[in-house]
């Protein structure tokens, strides 16, 4: 005689849906209408997969027709980007270097200040203070990026960079766009890092304090390492937002697609190029029009890779309490 087992096998607690246990009991009473509604719910959830497939196809079809005319290697390694010139040239590196610079500058601003704000909110602020400060920080995240771009153009470049620091800088610059983008990303990094640090059990802090550490030592040596996976994920998400940010760079970074070697230069990022190109009147299906999608595909692949790294890192460093 064999023991009776349920067909699905035991479901570990905390992993199955809330109805999983009840499903077996109510299964025989399922009505046709309910089955239809559940199917609709299921389709809604699966639609997200359709969206991804749709994105891939929308990018791939025009991009493939682009790469049938321009070799992939030439696209990826060329250092001159001039798709609209008579002697057209399709080296994407100028756009990539500009994106790398704006992202790098944005992180220089967002990582230290975002983490500082997160540490203060998670470890130092009283609940009352936190309740006031957090919504204000969220408000900063809610400012439209086009307004940030306007701010970069009409205030950061002329008043701060030229006026206070006396930099010899043009109307459009990678530096100005990157700095403002950094401020835009502060709330993203702060909010997610704070969540990660708040999730560290109180017992760890108490243990540290009991051993004679003060609040700063506890924060740096105990809470910070324990929350590292969440913090890294926050930073990586910040990177992917910086790479994909469009309006700030479209307004403040400039239009010249050139290899950026110095942040005071103007430059065209990948997103900036797409935005500007979309405003032009290139014919649908032309090589010029398809460059849009080739750059879009590259942007998609880069952000996908960054995101995959983030998910991996979180899995690797995750500590369960």
């Amino acid at each position: 005689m064999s023991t009776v087992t349920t067909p699905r096998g035991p479901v570990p607690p905390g992993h199955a849906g809330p109805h999983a246990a009840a499903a077996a009991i109510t299964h025989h009473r399922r009505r046709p209408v309910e089955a239809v509604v559940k199917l609709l719910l299921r389709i809604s959830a699966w639609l997200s997969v359709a969206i991804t497939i749709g994105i891939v196809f929308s990018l791939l079809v025009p991009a493939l027709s682009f790469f049938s005319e321009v070799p992939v290697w030439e696209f990826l390694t060329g250092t001159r980007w001039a798709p609209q010139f008579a002697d057209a040239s399709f080296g994407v590196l100028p756009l990539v270097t500009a994106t790398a610079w704006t992202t790098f500058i944005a992180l220089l601003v967002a990582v230290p200040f975002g983490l500082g704000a997160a540490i203060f909110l998670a470890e130092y602020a009283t609940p009352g203070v936190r309740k006031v400060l957090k919504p204000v920080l969220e408000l900063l995240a809610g400012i439209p990026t086009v307004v940030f771009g306007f701010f970069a153009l009409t205030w950061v470049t002329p008043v701060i960079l030229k006026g206070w620091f006396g930099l010899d800088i043009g109307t459009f610059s990678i530096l100005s766009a990157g700095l403002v983008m950094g401020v835009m990303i502060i709330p993203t990094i702060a909010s997610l890092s704070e969540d990660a640090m708040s999730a560290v059990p109180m017992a760890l802090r108490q243990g540290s304090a009991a051993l004679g550490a003060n609040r700063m030592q506890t924060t740096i040596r105990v809470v910070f390492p324990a929350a590292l996976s969440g913090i890294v994920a926050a930073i990586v998400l910040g990177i992917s937002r910086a790479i994909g940010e469009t309006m700030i760079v479209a307004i403040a970074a400039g239009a010249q697609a050139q290899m950026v070697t110095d942040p005071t230069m103007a430059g065209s990022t990948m997103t900036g190029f797409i935005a500007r190109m979309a405003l032009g009147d290139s014919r649908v299906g032309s090589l010029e029009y398809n460059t849009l999608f080739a750059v879009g595909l590259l942007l998609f692949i880069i952000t996908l890779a960054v995101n995959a790294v983030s998910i991996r890192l979180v899995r690797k460093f995750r500590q369960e309490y």
Partner: protein
Amino acid sequence: MAIDTTVSRPAPERLKTGSSRERSTASIVFLFLLWLSLFVAFATLVVLIATTVVEGWSRLDSRLFTEYPSSRPEEAGARPAILGSLWVIGTTAVMAIPLGVAAAVHLEEFADRQHWFNRFVELNIQNLSAIPSIIYGMLAIGTLSLLGVGDKNIVVGGALALALLILPVIIMATREALRAVPRELRQGSLALGATELQTTWRITLPAAVPGISTGTILALSRALGEAAPLLLLGGLVFISFDPNGLLSGFTTMPIQIFAWTGAPQVEFHQLAAAASILLVGILIAMNAVAIIIRNKFQKRW
């Protein structure tokens, strides 16, 4: 993303340490740096709002609401952009909210989380939320081409791009709100003989409404401020009529601000600032509503 955190966790009890230990030089410098970080964020916010108000205040009058864009700044207004934003966001809400909530209900209440496909769906939604917004504009172009639509500058096209953009945000916020509803409520309902769907519809969803609305309002406010995907749909056009339907041409406020920002005359920059004040004002109001709902109506179980 900052706007994803809709269910605030209860604050942990604060760590108590002896105050004498907190007065070392290093500690004080550290605390100062933390204050500096917050100061940078808040000072930027204040300066940004202050400079925008100073620059745009003189143009924040009825002309902004009644006039159409014009090459002469003193006659220009944002009427089509304001109406266009209302049309596009309204349509976005109609498309994204039911779909997002339905998807979240399936994933949270009914899906077998061990199944590889559901895990894939979850991973996929996480990925979608990190894709740059401008890519969604390309998706909308692709979809409209597939449907054989020639003129891409239509309200429903813009709404499609924005709805797909905020869908992952709504799904994640709704899931979090559903997860916060205690299991006992569902079990009580099931024990009284309700079916799973009756339980979801009458017990679980109503209990999650505050969390869902907070997340949804924040997602819609993000869509309202978004310009990049709409640029691809030819949103930067000279519209001199009131948008009047789903197939009407449109422009929106962020795009109008972008257009004015690019103009050489200072008067247009004032207009951009005035429209920015209006837009940021609306967004602050939406954020405030979301925060009030979160603080007042969210039950702690």
